[in-house]
């Protein structure tokens, strides 16, 4: 299985590179972020024990020590999820804060991405199949227009018109203020209502990429000999469109899917910020506004690693879809 092996190795190496990049960045900064961080932590009321100081220094830079020992300690900490404390949320560890936010983002981003991918791909197939006709032009122009919407702008608009003015949807948060997350149906329903606007914003802005990609792929695929041959052999239109054209046109889109996750995650940062939705994006927003380096660092790491894992999964899926990539 050289393909899978290759992708596995790539995954591991890229993972290592991302982790290392995360280590290097704060150390490249002018000034000493670790002092700034310690200062802020102290003023936020976090006790600066030796362990605490050590944790911050490992993350952000230890003065006068060998960089390789730091690196080793850094790696050890990562594996144990020891990210220290953040000064935006001084009462809990960074790991804990992130842990609370992670599921919200996973659900929002995960569900939205899958939805946008499926709908976008179908629209792309439709537009490509009926290329040049009214249906195609409508879909293409519509997608172009929506693609240009900055995600946070669409979010603000929806927030204003559907939440503030008309009260159809809640104004902020992932759930009603004061409620504690639990698995009860009423909470879940409430959470769902809170997620509609952010999800809609994300979905609309990421949909267009799929539509275009798929439409272009369809147009190229429709010119292939095997589509002509299938038509010449009298296969039904639906069979040709779906099993011969779309099925092949899909492949480049799947490859692109993994890479586009970066854009979705990026978009979610902005959207969550606008809606104060309690996910990772919102945390990053808070971290940036507060110059909260420990939190920023840890978030960056978590986000990047999640992306790499997702891409790896997509690579595995691709092998399932394209037999040319599997070797006997």
């Amino acid at each position: 299985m050289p393909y899978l092996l290759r992708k596995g190795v790539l995954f591991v190496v890229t993972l290592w590179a991302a982790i290392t990049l995360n280590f290097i960045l704060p150390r490249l900064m002018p000034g000493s972020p670790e002092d700034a961080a310690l200062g802020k932590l102290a003023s936020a009321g976090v006790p600066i024990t030796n362990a605490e100081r050590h944790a911050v220094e490992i993350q952000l830079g230890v003065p006068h020590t060998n960089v390789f020992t730091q690196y080793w300690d850094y790696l050890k900490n990562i594996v144990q999820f020891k990210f220290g404390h953040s000064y935006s949320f001084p009462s809990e560890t960074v790991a804990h804060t992130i842990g609370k936010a992670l599921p919200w983002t996973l659900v929002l981003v995960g569900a939205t991405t899958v939805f946008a991918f499926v709908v976008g791909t179908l629209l792309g197939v439709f537009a490509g199949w009926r290329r040049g006709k009214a249906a195609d032009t409508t879909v293409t122009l519509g997608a172009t227009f929506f693609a240009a919407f900055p995600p946070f702008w669409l979010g603000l608009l929806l927030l204003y018109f559907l939440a503030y003015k008309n009260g159809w949807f809640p104004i902020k948060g992932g759930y009603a203020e004061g409620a504690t997350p639990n698995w009860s149906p009423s909470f879940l329903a409430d959470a769902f209502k809170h997620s509609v606007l952010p999800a809609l914003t994300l979905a609309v802005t990421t949909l267009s990429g799929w539509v275009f990609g798929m439409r272009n792929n369809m147009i190229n695929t429709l010119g292939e000999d095997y589509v002509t041959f299938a038509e010449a052999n009298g296969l039904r239109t639906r069979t040709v469109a779906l099993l011969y054209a779309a099925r092949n046109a899909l492949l480049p889109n799947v490859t692109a899917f993994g890479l586009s996750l970066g854009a979705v995650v990026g978009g979610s940062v902005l959207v969550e910020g606008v809606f104060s939705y309690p996910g990772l994006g919102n945390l990053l927003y808070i971290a940036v506004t507060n110059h909260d380096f420990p939190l920023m660092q840890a978030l960056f790491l978590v986000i990047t690693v999640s992306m790499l894992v997702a891409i790896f999964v997509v690579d595995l899926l691709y092998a399932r879809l394209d037999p040319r990539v599997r070797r006997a």
Partner: protein
Amino acid sequence: MVLLDARGVNVVYEPARGQRIWSVRDVDIALEQGEFVGLVGESGSGKTTLGFALTRMLRPPARLEGGEIHFDGVDISSLDGEQLRAQRRNGFALVLQSGMNALNPVRTVERHFGDIMRAHARPGEDGSRAQIRRRGAELLASVQLDADVLSRFAHELSGGMRQRVSIALVLSLDPRLIIFDEPTTALDVIVQRAVMQTIKDLQREKGFTALLISHDLGVVLDATDRVMVMYAGRIVEDQPSADLLRGPHHPYTEGLLSSYADPRADEVELGGIPGVPPDLSLAPAGCSFAPRCPLVEPICHEVDPPLTPLGAGSAACHVRASEVVAHAR
């Protein structure tokens, strides 16, 4: 019995930007049942376009303009949709250029058979997986392929094998007419010979009418009963294959034959044809071959020569036609 009777076939390419090009001009073709006919011409002569026109596979910006195509008495030039699709079973079929890309990369050969059989299934016919496998294996055997090819993907097969699979797939339609468009052009010479032999054997065995389109006169003369020569969208000569080799009538055909060299001869003269093929966006005045013809006369620039009986078949040449008349006197 005439199986395919096409008259006055014209095909025009109309791109949104640019000029109209008439790639097939006023062509008449009649194919008898069981005949093996060849259609020869250089690139751009319109032969592939004609093949596509006859099987109703033209796509925009190409268009069939005027003319009638009768298949077994049915006018297929006006059929569409379901009716046209139905004609492809036990009707006319098309094998594409060298099958290199004719197979869906993500489906196995077995699934290809299944798709075709299901698309044309009639009530009462067994469409089970086992039946598909059985029929598939049978058809593969008829093109000298092993049954285990059924589970392969296109990229796991060589060019020659892919072409044979294409032929087998087409045979599953039980066609009465098969048009082969350059079936061996992209294959190397040895494989070419083998595949052509298979095609010849199949045609003899099953008795379907075959139209072999190619630029390779040698291949065509070897396999076919009758040959039509095409130039600038028109049929310029139509002879039994054996007669064409011995004595062509149209100057273009002569030129084609003189472009071949016998590898065993001691000395060889390569003739060739001077000039270039005409611009098909311009309406022809007179014979399209006139600018390059060694026998050209004034009338050739004015009147387009019709196909007149010459030898055992026909040819479109003023000069040769008048020679016959002169002889007859």
